[in-house]
């Protein structure tokens, strides 16, 4: 890495050069012209930029990890530098009472001005007892912090839609922020994890124009989630031509053909992954050879699984929880129908043979 010093410990300062580089990447993701970059830079360095309270609930910290461990160090540091992070359980130095004190102070001091970032789903069943921090439930903390913020950013699919925790049968009643917080601007940055650039772009947009970017019907910013993966995937030419991977490891797979037939969810998933890619190594799942898992979509653990099949399976009513592919259910129904038609026709023939030509018996006036 460029700015790693000789003893192997990363230099934690961020140079102006890499700072501007980061802003430029975010501007590119936002689809802004380069002439806007100075505005982003000045907003990002403004001393009046709002503090951020980062709440962790039911989650794996993967979203934070992906921000901090971006191989391109600029992004992670830029984010930490950019937003004045007053409360973040993973990276703050304070602990215990001191940490909770920080949270309280920020809320008091910046009432209505701070940004509340939420990572993780919020369990609601049984009074929300399944996630507690400092003796308080996630529901309580969110109900206290979110209404007094200026805006809420839900980072990751858990905070956006409930994520893995909300997968059927959702034992803890996990929900996303939007289901609990009303009357505040909320933006969703789903993904498992989301691309750090999408988060950075959203924050910079907010700092520069004092409002959240335009979103789709699910609260996702259009600059990052405005287009389906399938519509700007590098394998799309193979899709249109009908060249598919039939099995992992086959000749088509080696040739880099389209992953549709091995369960790619790109046609049903909105995200900028093929354009922005991850960790500055120019990779994303499809370029690595596995189909998209659809992680930015609501309920993806239920509707996008099995990950190697295109459509979810259905539960067969008679089989006590047996699942099978929707197609085999359809085939069974078609088979039964064909059988029924055959029996019906045969019954008519047998009947007529038994009765002779009894056509006149068939009709009666109304």
């Amino acid at each position, binding site marked *: 890495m460029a700015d790693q010093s000789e003893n192997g410990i990363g230099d934690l300062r961020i140079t102006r050069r890499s700072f501007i580089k980061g802003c430029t990447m975010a501007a590119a993701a936002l689809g802004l012209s380069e002439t806007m970059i100075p505005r982003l830079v000045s907003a990002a360095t403004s001393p009046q930029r709002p503090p951020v309270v980062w709440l962790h609930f039911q989650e794996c910290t993967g979203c934070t990890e992906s921000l901090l461990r971006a191989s391109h160090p600029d992004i992670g540091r830029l984010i930490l530098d950019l937003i004045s992070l007053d409360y973040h359980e993973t990276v703050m130095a304070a602990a215990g009472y001191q940490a909770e004190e920080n949270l309280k102070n920020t809320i008091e001091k910046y009432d209505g001005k701070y940004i509340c970032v939420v990572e993780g789903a919020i369990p609601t069943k049984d009074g929300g007892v399944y996630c507690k921090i400092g003796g308080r439930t996630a529901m309580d903390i969110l109900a206290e912090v979110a209404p007094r913020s200026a805006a809420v950013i839900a980072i990751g699919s858990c905070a956006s839609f409930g994520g893995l925790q909300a997968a059927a049968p959702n034992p803890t009643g996990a929900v996303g922020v939007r289901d609990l917080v009303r009357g505040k601007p909320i933006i969703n940055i789903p993904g498992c994890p989301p691309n750090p650039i999408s988060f950075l772009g959203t924050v910079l947009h907010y700092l520069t124009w004092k409002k959240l970017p335009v979103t789709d019907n699910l609260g996702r910013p259009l600059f990052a989630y405005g287009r389906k993966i399938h519509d700007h995937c590098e394998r799309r030419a193979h899709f249109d*031509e009908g060249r598919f991977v039939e099995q992992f490891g086959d000749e088509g797979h080696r040739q880099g053909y389209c992953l549709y037939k091995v369960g790619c969810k790109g046609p049903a998933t909105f995200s900028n992954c093929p354009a922005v890619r991850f960790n500055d190594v120019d990779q994303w799942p499809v370029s690595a050879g596995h189909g998209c898992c659809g992680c930015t979509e609501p309920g993806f653990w239920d509707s996008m699984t099995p990950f190697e099949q295109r459509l979810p399976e259905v539960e067969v009513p008679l089989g006590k929880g047996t699942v099978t592919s929707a197609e085999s259910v359809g085939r069974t129904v078609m088979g039964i129908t064909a059988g029924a038609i055959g029996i019906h026709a045969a019954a008519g023939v047998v009947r007529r043979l038994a009765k002779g030509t009894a056509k006149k018996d*068939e009709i009666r006036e109304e």
Partner: protein
Amino acid sequence: MSYEFEKYRAFGPLYRITHWVFAISCVILLFTGYYIYEPWFTTMLEKGVDDFTVANMRFFHFAAGYCFMGAVIARFYLWFFGNRQERITDALPVTKRNIKNFWGAILNYLYVKFHVPRLGHNALAGTTYLVTFLLSMVMIASGFYLLYPESVQVQAWGGAVFGSQQNARFVHFILMFYYIFFAMVHIYIAIWNDVMFGEGLVSAIISGSKFLHIKRPRVD
């Protein structure tokens, strides 16, 4: 003994046109739709020819989808402004006449009761067509939601109805089997009726005329 039939006008031209637009677009939609689900023949061998197989299949699917929607709109009009045989009042099993006819048709199909001639469809068929019509609206809604995923307006109602693209795909795919089921049963019953009762039911959807017997046949 021989039968005496009289020719009656049963179905208007618009009705017959919608029927055949439905039939043809459904065959195309089923074929291309199944191909989109599982592209079973492909250009794997890289013939060096740009034949754009999947892209073309999708194009024919969308083109047929638009024709299908046109037919559904025309049928919607006919439910209310068509002739007596085409109207919703002849299909819905809510009036006494229709309820009686509904059960009569089921028993007739089970070889239990006599066939009762009726100029329009029997109420069982009418009800089935109404259900098919409603499912076609779901098919069109999910189809258009899949076709214009980036449109803000389509997202607003499509998202509200289906939740996500993936759910819409699933609904769209599952309902395909209803259309296969319907096509099988529909064609069988139509031919069966023609064979059994000689009313010219199959040709009625081409010519518009049906033959109803005028004399009660003698029962020995």
